[in-house]
């Protein structure tokens, strides 16, 4: 265990935000889960007791008749906002006094940094470069993420869970988001920061980042495994595999929705549903492709003269 190496990575000034992000994220997930759990219990209670549902104020926080239902922003909200501002200022100042912003050697195009890393918040995308060609990882993927995020309100037809934390009422959407945010985005960043060393090679935490490490790794393409040699056949084969994935996957999503989320499904238009289907499958394709690469050393699935997937 090379503690010095681990410390060096964690204490690199630009990595400190990520080190901070991890506990913060854990804390807020816990906070959200706690409230969601309480709300879910309340919902269960109210579902079971319709009479109570009629009279209850429907929040987990204590409430007594006669208490103001609305409070003045001044001072009740603003005092908290100001307090938050002060705390943020303190954190920022302490951070700035104690930790210097990095400044390395003057830019030198002739001396490549190893590893050359993007800013930490883009490391997820850089990590994707291992599994996908740059045009997917660098262009298509970010676009899909933005588009995907933007369509969320329009495809989420579940009217429940608006304005309060809940798990039971929004199992699918929350788990999908958690999957996308925590697993695909944050975890990728953590891998990119802490795990990827010189040569973008995989170093376990505490493993020494040896600049001379060599790894024997032969990556094959999926068509090769099936002994397909001709270019046209490869293109067709790939198209079939990718198409097949979306077809079969689409079927699975359909059956899942129909069985488990009947109501939501009914509320959805065809366009909404196919959108969800496509984005969901694309998102799931990501870890699948990673698995292919990491476990079976498969580089491309679909090879065409113009692009590879």
């Amino acid at each position, binding site marked *: 265990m090379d503690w010095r190496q681990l410390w060096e990575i964690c204490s690199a000034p630009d990595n400190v935000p990520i080190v901070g992000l991890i506990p913060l994220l854990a804390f807020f997930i816990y906070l959200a889960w706690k409230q969601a759990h309480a709300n879910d219990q309340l919902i269960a209670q109210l579902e079971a007791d319709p009479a109570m549902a009629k009279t209850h104020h429907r929040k987990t926080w204590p409430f007594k*008749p006669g208490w103001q239902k609305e409070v003045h922003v001044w001072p009740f909200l603003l005092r908290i906002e100001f307090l938050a501002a002060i705390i943020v200022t303190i954190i*920022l*100042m302490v951070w700035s006094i104690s930790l210097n*912003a990095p400044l390395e050697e003057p830019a030198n195009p002739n001396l490549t940094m190893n590893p050359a890393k993007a800013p930490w918040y883009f490391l997820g995308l850089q990590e994707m470069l291992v599994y996908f060609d*740059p045009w997917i990882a660098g262009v298509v993927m970010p676009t899909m993420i933005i588009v995907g995020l933007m369509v969320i309100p329009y495809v989420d037809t579940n*009217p*429940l869970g608006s304005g*309060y934390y809940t798990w039971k009422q929004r199992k699918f959407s929350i788990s999908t988001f958690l999957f996308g945010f925590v697993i695909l985005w944050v975890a990728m960043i953590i891998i990119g920061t802490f795990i990827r060393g010189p040569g973008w090679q995989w170093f376990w935490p505490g493993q020494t980042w040896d600049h001379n490490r060599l790894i024997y790794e032969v990556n094959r393409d999926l068509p090769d495994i099936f002994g397909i040699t001709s270019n046209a056949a490869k293109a067709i084969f790939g198209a079939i595999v990718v198409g097949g994935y979306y077809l079969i996957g689409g079927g699975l999503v359909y059956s899942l929705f129909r069985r488990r989320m009947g109501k939501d499904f009914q509320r959805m238009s065809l366009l909404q549903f196919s959108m969800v289907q496509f984005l969901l499958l694309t998102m799931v394709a990501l870890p699948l492709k990673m698995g292919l690469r990491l476990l079976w050393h498969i580089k491309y699935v679909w090879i065409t003269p113009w692009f590879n997937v």
Partner: protein
Amino acid sequence: MADENNPNRTNGKNGNKVGLLEKVTAGVKGDIQSLKTDIPTKAKEQIEGLKDPTKTQVYTSIFRHKHDDTPRNRALGVLSNVFLHLHPAKINRDAVRYSYTWGMGGITFYLFIILTYTGVLLMFYYHPSKVQAFRDVLYLEHDVPFGKILRNMHRWAAHLMVIAVWLHMFRVFLTGSYKKPREFNWNIGVLLLVFTLLLSFTGYLLPDDQLGFWAVTVGTNMARATPLLGHEGPFGSMLGMTPYNDVRFGLLGGSIVDANALLRSYIWHCIGIPIVASVLMIVHFWRVRKDGGISGPAPVMLEAEADKPRRGPKAAGE
């Protein structure tokens, strides 16, 4: 001030042809008399008046309303303040709970203000040229009073802002706050996220050191592979894309990260993106109000009520 006490008038009433000299003498006497009596009383009055500064003209012109702790004044305090009036006068009693909001939206905005402020100060010392940039940063670090902490604050606030934006978005999703009627504001938020990242990214290059240089090189190298528009992207070369006319060239102002890229980065960082982001922020805040304030904490809904029209908060009964 001498109006009421003008001695001329009384003198004139007598009808005597009083000489000019007398008139003047009398007038001066009156003035002296007035100075002796009126001024002290006035001064006294006015000093008394200062004891309650809230009644002064200056005060009222600024605050427009009294400061007594009445509900009305509390509301007015918010409504009549240009900075605070993005809040309503009153809000849902539970919306003040930070366990619900996490305060991340506000923190993001606050950090944006800090960044603008420190950024402007940094601009005083920074020249976006290959010769000067790195030296300027060294200069900031070693020579400028408070230069080091200034740069540190700018850098760390930027990182903190990225984190705050993510957490804000995370919270908004978890509370389902993007749902009707706030769909559009969610989209604005997504764009703001993108711009936050771009702001941070464009700033990365500015110190012109190895770290920034290679981060930006790695980042923009992906643009080479843009389908159709990048010379290494699918179909790019078919469309005649070369390293000298593709989208990356457009981003960097050259085929490598160099002086032009530095300048472009600087302008996007200091002018372009902040303006766009500010506009979007205004829209974002405006829509929060227009879409009915922040989404919650709302009363929980039951499965059965899902398809009924949404009840107002008041229905959450006594």
